[in-house]
């Protein structure tokens, strides 16, 4: 059961129960919708970008514990950061969840987000963890198409 405990760590459960930055963002400058057709997860991400900085961010939607906590952790991680920094973090997060299980993840690079490294043992769940990030990328590039995890 160790792998289940790795997946559903206390931090993840906490973000699932009490998601941060959850709700509408009235003065958003851009937004995007994400959809994981495999499990029906849907999320709307709203951003307020001033200059090159993300000064506001929130999300809404329904999803499993992994996708919800990942979205919650992500909003905390990129809020107040520049668009370039957020894009860099996207790459690091992507790198982490696609690192083979038998190799260590670079915890320093991703900070708190390292709690999601456990999804690597559940290939079907990697998409749940990445949905929010793909949606962020879509919102930053102002793509109007819903982001997909495919």
């Amino acid at each position: 059961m160790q792998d289940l405990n790795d997946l559903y760590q206390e931090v993840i459960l906490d973000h699932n129960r009490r998601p941060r930055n959850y709700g509408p963002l009235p003065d958003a400058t851009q937004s995007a919708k994400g959809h994981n057709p495999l499990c029906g997860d849907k999320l709307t991400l709203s951003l307020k970008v001033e200059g090159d900085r993300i000064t506001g961010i929130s999300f809404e939607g329904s999803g499993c514990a992994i996708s919800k906590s990942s979205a919650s952790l992500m909003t905390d991680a990129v809020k107040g950061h520049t668009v370039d920094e957020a894009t860099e973090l996207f790459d690091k997060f992507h790198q982490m969840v696609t690192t083979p299980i038998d190799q260590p993840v670079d915890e320093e690079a991703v900070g708190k987000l390292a709690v999601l490294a456990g999804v690597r043992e559940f290939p079907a769940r990697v998409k749940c963890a990445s949905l929010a990030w793909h949606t962020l990328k879509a919102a930053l590039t102002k793509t109007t198409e819903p982001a997909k995890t495919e």
Partner: protein
Amino acid sequence: MTPHVVPAASPVPAPLDVLAVREQFPALHQLVHGKPLAYLDNAATTQKPQVVLDALRHYYERDNANVHRGVHTLSERATASYESARRSVQRFLNARSEREIIFTRNATESINLVARAWGDWQLKPGDEVLITAMEHHSNIVPWQMACARTGAILKVAPIDDRGDVILEEFEKLLTPRTKMLAVVHLSNALGTINPVEDMIAAARRVGATVLIDGSQSVYHMAVDVQALDPDFYVFTGHKVYGPTGIGVLYGRESLLQACPPFLGGGDMISSVTFEKSEWNELPYKFEAGTPNIADAIGLAAAIEFVRGIGFETIGAHESTLLEYATAQLSAVPGLTIIGTARRKASVVSFVMHDLHPHDIGTIVDREGVAIRTGHHCAQPVMDRFGIPATARASLAMYNTTDEIDALVVALDRVRQLLG
């Protein structure tokens, strides 16, 4: 004087020897994450009995050749086995003639074949295609595409909170404009068994052609296409204990005769010149190219296996399982069953308060329990019930009450971990 009436012996089905049945299915006997596998995802696909595996192996080891094309011995054997498989399917559905049985890849291809060949031929602008709100995507999308090509209009009969078609609404939607009624016999997402006899009779009154999607029914109940009398009946081999890659389209002979072909190529023609080709006779007109010979033979082995046990016996066992699963799952705190139709098969879809089906699926898998989670290729059903997804346990003849207990214990584990 009242004649002496001998009461007909009410046929009591022989009880199913579930352990003996399980012995026939090699895949059931394995550990998953160190726990005995409880395979409860039969609506997605069923496991295969040894006789099916043996039939596939025998075909490739001994008889492999192309069909309808050679005079040599192997080709004759392959042709004989392939055509014998068609007769198995004919008997299974009680079709009048083997000319009414067309092999396809799966139910999806069967429906697309009808939507293309029949639809493009018969549908005109303003005509209507009527489906229900509980259709699988494979009985929605081909009709949307056919409507887009022909200018016909797609209509949807609504369902109620139990997951039954609202028959008054259905009857209202059925009008002389309805050219096609396409309905699922047994819903994969809800377990509802539709009153297709009545629906077909209603369609007849307005002159509509009828297609029944039997993908889920053929492994739970006996189907008699002469008694039901639809124009088309489709199913998919892998859900009736057969191989993947083989499906069936039953079509009324006169209609298939009149209908233009779907795909063009070898086998479906009787003569070809550059000016014109003559279509082959039925059923070959609808089977272009080298067919899936091996899997048709495997499907026949599966069908004979099911017939050998008998649907009375299978049905009695599965009703017991459904009753037990419904009672046990209803007792799980916070669990709600989605789909409580008046007539139901052994499919139990459910949601749990505050717990997402995807998390449930992952956790119970670690307990060896395989269930499906998601929208079950029926997104409109999820929308109807206002939920993103469900978890679903779907039970087949080889399942046991112990396996249902294993699911209930695993659900406890879910609540411990996430609750």
